[in-house]
């Protein structure tokens, strides 16, 4: 399965029977609106999911014990400068400097305080600092592309970084991912754990990206797109994006909390 899509050294034009963007677009179209507000686990247009999605329904269970709590993180875990991805090396990274900030709340709208947020991303050229990334775009010696922070007392996280570039991948011929930042979040319960991706408004690659489209409901997909916010933009320095994140509901009662 994997090998079928490992066509690195091939000249695409010489490959007769391969999946085109038009094929993928057709598959995306067929599945549009077929899932709920979460991504479909079984989503064939994203080829790597074919052998990796469970086929049985998830088993509904009441959370108990440790599942009613999330792990705690603090200043022992995260240094104050880890939220600035532009100061991790001797020089300044290339690209468009941005700030990304937003509020993490639970399903009832309560802020998720002092909790860990982790991000990772490609550089401005669309290249990851990762052994497996073979995209022939330059690495930036001044940009690694990983950061962490803790939300503040109001549930707010803030990262300063570089706007990532779009990048090619081998799902099908001429497949390109829209620019995105990977986010990892914890809530107040174990059950709220979320790993997702933040996108930039108006990206022309949205319609043809099987990962973004694995969320087949447009309203839900929209929740993954940050908003440009001029009030966050700093004169002659950086552009500002706002991305608020709602986690699922909590299961603990206020009594258990105290």
């Amino acid at each position, binding site marked *: 399965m994997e090998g079928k899509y490992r066509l690195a050294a091939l000249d695409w034009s010489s490959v007769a029977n391969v999946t085109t963007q038009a094929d993928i677009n057709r598959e995306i179209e067929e599945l549009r609106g077929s899932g709920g*507000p*979460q*991504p*479909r686990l079984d989503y064939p247009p*994203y080829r*790597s*999911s074919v*052998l*990796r*999605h*469970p086929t*049985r329904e*998830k*088993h*509904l*269970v*009441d*959370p*108990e*014990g*440790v599942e*009613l*709590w*999330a*792990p*705690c993180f*603090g*200043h*022992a*875990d995260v240094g104050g400068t880890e939220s600035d991805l532009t100061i991790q090396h001797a020089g300044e990274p290339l690209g468009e400097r941005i700030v990304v900030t937003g509020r993490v*709340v639970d399903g*009832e709208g309560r802020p998720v305080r002092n909790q860990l947020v*982790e*991000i*990772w991303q*490609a550089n401005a050229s669309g290249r*990851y*600092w*990762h052994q*497996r990334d073979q995209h022939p775009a330059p690495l930036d010696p001044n940009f*690694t*592309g990983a950061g962490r922070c803790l939300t503040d007392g109001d549930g707010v996280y803030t990262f300063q970084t570089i706007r990532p570039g779009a990048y090619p991948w081998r799902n099908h011929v001429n497949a390109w991912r829209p620019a995105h930042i*990977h986010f*990892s979040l914890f809530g107040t319960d*174990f*059950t709220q*754990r979320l*790993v*997702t*991706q933040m996108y930039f408004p108006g990206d022309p690659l949205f319609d043809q990206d099987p*990962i*973004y489209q*694995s969320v087949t409901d447009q*309203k839900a997909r929209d*929740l*993954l797109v940050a908003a440009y916010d001029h009030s966050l933009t700093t004169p002659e320095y950086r552009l500002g994006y706002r991305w608020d994140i*709602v986690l*699922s*509901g909590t*299961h603990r009662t206020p009594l258990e909390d105290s």
Partner: protein
Amino acid sequence: MTSAPGQTVGPFFHLGLPFDGGNLLVPPGHPQGVRLHGRVFDGEGNGVPDALIEIWQTDPSGRVPRETGSIRRDGYTFTGWGRAQTDDGGHYWFSTLLPGSPFFAVTVFARGLTDRLFTRAYLPDPGPDALLDGLEPARRATLITTREEHGLLFDIHLQGEGETVFLSYPGQAR
């Protein structure tokens, strides 16, 4: 409020998520330490080399840890939380303590998996249990670790033969 959809961790999560000592809830060789380990398999029975497993557990007395410090471990504090990536064969392992409560809470991430999956890894020979008792024997068995000389074995099958029982919780959108 509608919760934000998940998205796959993708192939490059090693850049952002794993950290030194992530899988060492206690240092290897700890007198009460056990190894919790296993392999993650795809629908054709091949190991998944780009999966990430997180565990969250009580301490040996059954208490839910409230201590920080999982990312920069001090070697003494038991935080109850760990993170391990799979190797080329799909194998992951943790050095930890036996929880005082019946199971480890487990989260599974992988390239090709559009959203994270939750499951439980029960200690061997579990007593009466609301979840386990509602499952047919073959399904039930996928949630129970196997005792070994140095700890516990817990394989995770994402699909197909012996597919692990994955969980959803009330109020969560499917």
